């Protein structure tokens, strides 16, 4: 098992963000987490990378209690691509991507030949090699997001966590980067856990979908089994049509205009997302 999450709860003050969540995630799959804003998706990622600790329950990574990993060895297991990336100091693209190699380098060592080789290869695959010597502070938001993606890939971890990582990318780079993540799953048996806002992107890339609402899991399983109009309606309160699309060779979801006044109110807004 890559992850074995059992009966995990998490609070911000008195607010319950995650309520008794249990999940078993075998390795070698592309997992998608979808759900309305504020449903606890990002908090779940934070718990999986141990940026936060659960108030109750336990999380095992490869059979070992997550809290028992030393920080540095955990950073060789999981990498994160965050949603927003803000930087105030003029590092070059190449320097930022090289930071992904820090967990593999002794504290006072210079990068090895292999580190340079990995950084270069990753920069080419993510299409950022063209501005490797430019300052990240001078790049556009989408370009910077690709640099962050490259940095996470350079970390070379078996688990990759994506937190709405493609939300400010154009469609070309969205497909390219999610494709790279999926390639790692197919070729090297890596595990990707992605919080996605776009349900059709999720349908395109994920093997397994986890639907969340109000800090709990509504439904999860193989994408063929769980991607249904009823699930989408239960989670998002919208009517949708789900059908097999021969062009993408996947199930895809279409929506129609809905009058806001006729949509039932949503009971979200718990905590942050």
């Amino acid at each position, binding site marked *: 098992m890559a992850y074995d999450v059992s009966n995990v709860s998490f609070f911000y003050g008195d607010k319950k963000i995650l309520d008794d969540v249990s999940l078993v995630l075998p390795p070698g799959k592309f997992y998608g987490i979808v759900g309305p804003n504020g449903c606890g998706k990002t908090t779940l990622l*934070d718990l999986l*990378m*141990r*940026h936060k600790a659960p108030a109750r329950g336990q999380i095992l990574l490869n059979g070992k209690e997550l809290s028992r990993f030393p*920080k*540095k060895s*955990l*950073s*060789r297991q*999981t*990498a*994160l691509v*965050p949603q927003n*990336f*803000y*930087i*105030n*100091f*003029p*590092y*070059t693209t*190449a*320097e*930022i991507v090289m*930071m*992904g190699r*820090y*967990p593999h380098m002794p*504290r006072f060592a*210079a*990068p090895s030949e292999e580190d*340079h080789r990995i*950084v*270069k290869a990753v920069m080419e695959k993510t299409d950022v090699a063209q501005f*490797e*010597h430019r300052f990240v502070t*001078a790049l556009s938001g989408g370009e910077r997001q690709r640099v*962050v993606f490259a*940095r996470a890939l350079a*970390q070379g971890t078996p688990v990759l*966590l994506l937190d709405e990582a493609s939300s400010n990318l154009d469609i070309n780079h969205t497909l390219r980067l999610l494709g790279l993540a999926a390639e790692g799953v197919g070729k090297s048996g890596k595990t990707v856990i992605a919080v996605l806002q776009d349900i059709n992107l999720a349908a395109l890339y994920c093997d397994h979908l986890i639907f969340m609402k109000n800090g709990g899991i509504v439904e999860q399983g193989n994408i063929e089994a769980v991607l249904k109009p009823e699930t989408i309606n239960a989670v998002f309160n919208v009517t949708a049509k789900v059908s097999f699309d021969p062009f993408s060779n996947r199930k895809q979801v279409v929506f129609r205009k809905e009058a806001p006044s006729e949509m039932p109110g949503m009971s979200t807004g718990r905590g942050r997302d």
Partner: protein
Amino acid sequence: MPIADSIIKKLQGAFITQVIMLAGLLFAAVITAATMGYIAIPASDVLKVIASALTGDTQMLAGVDELFPVVVLDVRLPRILAATLVGSGLAMSGAVFQGILLNPLADPYTLGVSAGAAFGASVAILLNLGFLGTYSIPLFAFCGAVATLFFVIYLSASGEGLSSNNLILSGIIVAAILSAGISFLKYLADEQVGVIIFWLMGSFGSKTWIDVGLAFAFVVFGFMVCVFFARDLNLMSLGTRTAASLGVDTRKVPLILLVTASLVAGVCVSISGIIGFVGLLVPHMVRFITGPDNRRLIPVSLLVGAILLLTADTITRAVLPAEIPIGVLTALIGGPFFCYIFRKRQKVMRSD
């Protein structure tokens, strides 16, 4: 193959060259400063005096005016080395503060360290506390700085660790309260008010080897801690969440670095009074040469800070007809210079 490789190697090579050149420049500046003053002493005699003091070999002093060793060893060198160490300490802690607070405009005083030190010193002066001789003022200044630091950290701590916005805000609030306190102390001080004002403006006059030893101990200790965590500081600039995912202990590391940098700044202030702009300006300038990587920025800032503050102190001590308080001089030179580079940066950003 590796264009990136060769450039990085070149940069690293350049880094070693930079450090060697700056260290050489600093040594030359120390010797030159020791030759200057009311009595001009030839550089060769300065070197002889220092060499004989280091080796204990009095033979070397043959042919040197017997007044020179006293002037160099007892008067000039303590002041010169104190200015050098305070300059390096302020520049280094400035670099660290900017790194942790993710704000290139932060300086060692951002968390209210200077206001705390000034308040402590004012209390000591006002109450005329002399139980520790000349050391009661620096001791009170240091205690004021440390107490302020911990209060600011206490104010801004939340369950999520330390956020840079909280720290900056708390620092500003506490500093504002303390400055009001200082004004009140000045109002109460009567004839002592001159002493308080003079202390606040900073000075390296009448520094002793004990001051030098204290500054040296704290700067060396601080430097080792900061260089040890320099790589983690680089990762902190990516944001806490990303830094944590790269293996940085995002609760412990910022706290250790903040306390270390503030202690160094606190010692500097208690030795010299408040000297502004060195901690803000030096890391700014150095970033143009080394880039933002803290593993290069911190050592180079240390050397540049030492050279600049020594130069400023030598100008006010030996070049100007009357001594200007060093804190006033650094603000008068540093302030406009900062405006200049800040403006230049705005223009560059606009044309980009």
